[in-house]
């Protein structure tokens, strides 16, 4: 990029002559243009593969099949089946975010005293990184191998103990199954995002509490919890956004129907499009962006509060 030809220190002799200002200004403009050219490839790339797709979604959500502006796509969102999908997505994300946050915070608390650069902590954070981010399809298969119809645990319970975990119907490939697998990747994510906050807690604060006569309970109630609350809430929001935008796990696990909104978008993208509804998928996508943006905005606010003490 930086090969753009401007020479900052070229031709010093020129400035000695009398009518200097005009060329100097021109040269200055050229130099500015050259400086901007340095970021041009990046901006072009981002425009094509990030900005345009975003605009396609935003504009498409308000356009009819033949490109006329319309609100009918957004009105379609209030249809029963789409609203239900949004509702289920939100409930699923909220439940797994709260469960993941509580269990993850406990695990992070159990880990925080391990040596920061010790092998245990490295191994656990790496494992958490894999489970939290890499997940998707592989985790779906992990659970199929575990509690699928011929899964290890299913078979073991059936053969050894005579327990049929699916006596009430096969729930793995539906919302309860999704909740279980989602929790499996939410807990590690919580560990990753909550550990730094826990690391910020200083032992001196506890000593200060006890030297002032405070009990353990008072320390937690009056010092640690208020300090950790913004970090905890913020992490929970991040978990919510994470679950809300997850697609791969659900796609691999659920093959019938589209209970949650990412799967609705899948069917809008892949199935035969009903006339006049070409852009409903884009409207749903816009809805998802809005939910995630709100959640992330709240997260950013909370994060700023957290960093005041635990940064």
């Amino acid at each position: 990029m930086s090969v753009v030809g401007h020479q900052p220190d070229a031709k010093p002799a020129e400035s000695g002559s009398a009518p200097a200002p005009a060329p100097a200004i021109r040269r200055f403009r050229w130099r500015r243009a050259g400086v901007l050219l340095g970021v041009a490839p990046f901006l072009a790339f981002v425009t094509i593969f990030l900005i345009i797709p975003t605009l396609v979604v935003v504009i498409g959500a308000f356009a009819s099949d033949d490109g006329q502006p319309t609100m009918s796509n957004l009105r379609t969102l209030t249809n029963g089946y789409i609203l239900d999908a949004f509702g289920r997505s939100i409930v699923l994300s909220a439940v797994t975010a709260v469960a993941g946050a509580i269990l993850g915070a406990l695990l992070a608390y159990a880990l925080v005293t391990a040596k920061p650069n010790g092998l245990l902590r490295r191994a656990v954070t790496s494992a958490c990184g894999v489970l939290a981010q890499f997940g998707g399809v592989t985790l779906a298969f992990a659970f199929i191998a575990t509690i699928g119809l011929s899964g290890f645990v299913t078979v073991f319970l059936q053969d050894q103990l005579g327990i049929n975990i699916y006596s009430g119907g096969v729930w793995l490939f539906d919302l309860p199954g999704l909740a279980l697998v989602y929790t499996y990747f939410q807990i590690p994510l919580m560990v990753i995002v909550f550990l730094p906050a826990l690391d910020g807690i200083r032992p001196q604060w506890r000593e200060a509490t006890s030297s002032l006569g405070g009990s353990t309970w008072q320390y937690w109630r009056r010092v640690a919890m208020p300090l950790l609350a913004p970090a905890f809430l913020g992490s929970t929001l991040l978990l919510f956004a994470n679950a809300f935008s997850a697609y791969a796990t659900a796609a691999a696990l659920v093959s019938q129907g589209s209970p949650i909104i990412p799967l609705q978008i899948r069917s809008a993208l892949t199935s035969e499009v009903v006339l006049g509804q070409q852009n409903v998928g884009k409207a749903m996508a816009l809805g998802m962006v809005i939910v995630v943006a709100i959640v992330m905005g709240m997260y950013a606010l909370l994060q700023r509060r957290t960093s005041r003490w635990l940064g």
Partner: protein
Amino acid sequence: MAGLIARAARRQRVMRWIVVLVLGVFFLLPLVAMVMFTIREPNGHYTFSTWRLLANWKQLGQTYPDLWAGMKSSAGLAVFTVLIMLVMLVPTAVWVRLRLPKMRRFLEFVCLLPLTIPAIVLVVGLAPVYAWVTYFLGGSALTLTFAYTILVLPYAYRAIDAGLSAIDVRTLAEAARSLGAGWATVMWRVVLPNIRSAVLSASFLTVALVLGEFTIASLLNRENLQVAIDLLGKSSATMSVAVSFAALVLAFALLFLLSFAGRRRGRRGATTPDQLGAVSPSLIASEAIGERS
């Protein structure tokens, strides 16, 4: 008092072990089950034939051509995405620091934007863009590398930005320039060696993310490792579980290595407490969002 503290500490220790044990079982059980699933036959015998086949590349390619193709394209995608990411991001980030400091906020905003746009949403908007990509470059799975570069942008940017914050780019560049170095030399021989560990972090994260990507590949009808695993699940459950497990282990190894890669050069700055930031994409993400405003 001392006794009280000791008792509290003991109680804490017991609590900690219970938590670790219970959650440890929850996390290890599916992984153990995956292994058992791949080596147990319905009649109760054990066999390692699945793993032998997985280790035998030639035969694997013949038995499961789709899986083989997916592996190859994921490997290619990882390489290309790392290259494009580095070529796009490193010079731009350095250039903005040196010559366009006012654009830093903007650059950061753009790089973090993909965090608020779920992949499933991005793919909706990418579909028409990829119609053009297919028109110009053909329908190869490797074209996904452009979309993946966008996906890894937030994580890669955080890693590289942290690396650049730790060195005085301006002074280094000015020193090199005053000694007669061109911009290419500044970049290649001065800046790059100084942010080696950051570049390494960004590359590792990119590889891990690319190997795990499913959403975009699947919905743009391109073939990669995860799509192949998903497809395989419908025909050969044992093999798909074995490959899933191998992929998880590989990703773990990558991130574990990464946790050491960041160590060598002690970075300063608050962004990498205990190098945790280097370990996890999501942490980098969380910090990134937190520092945005």
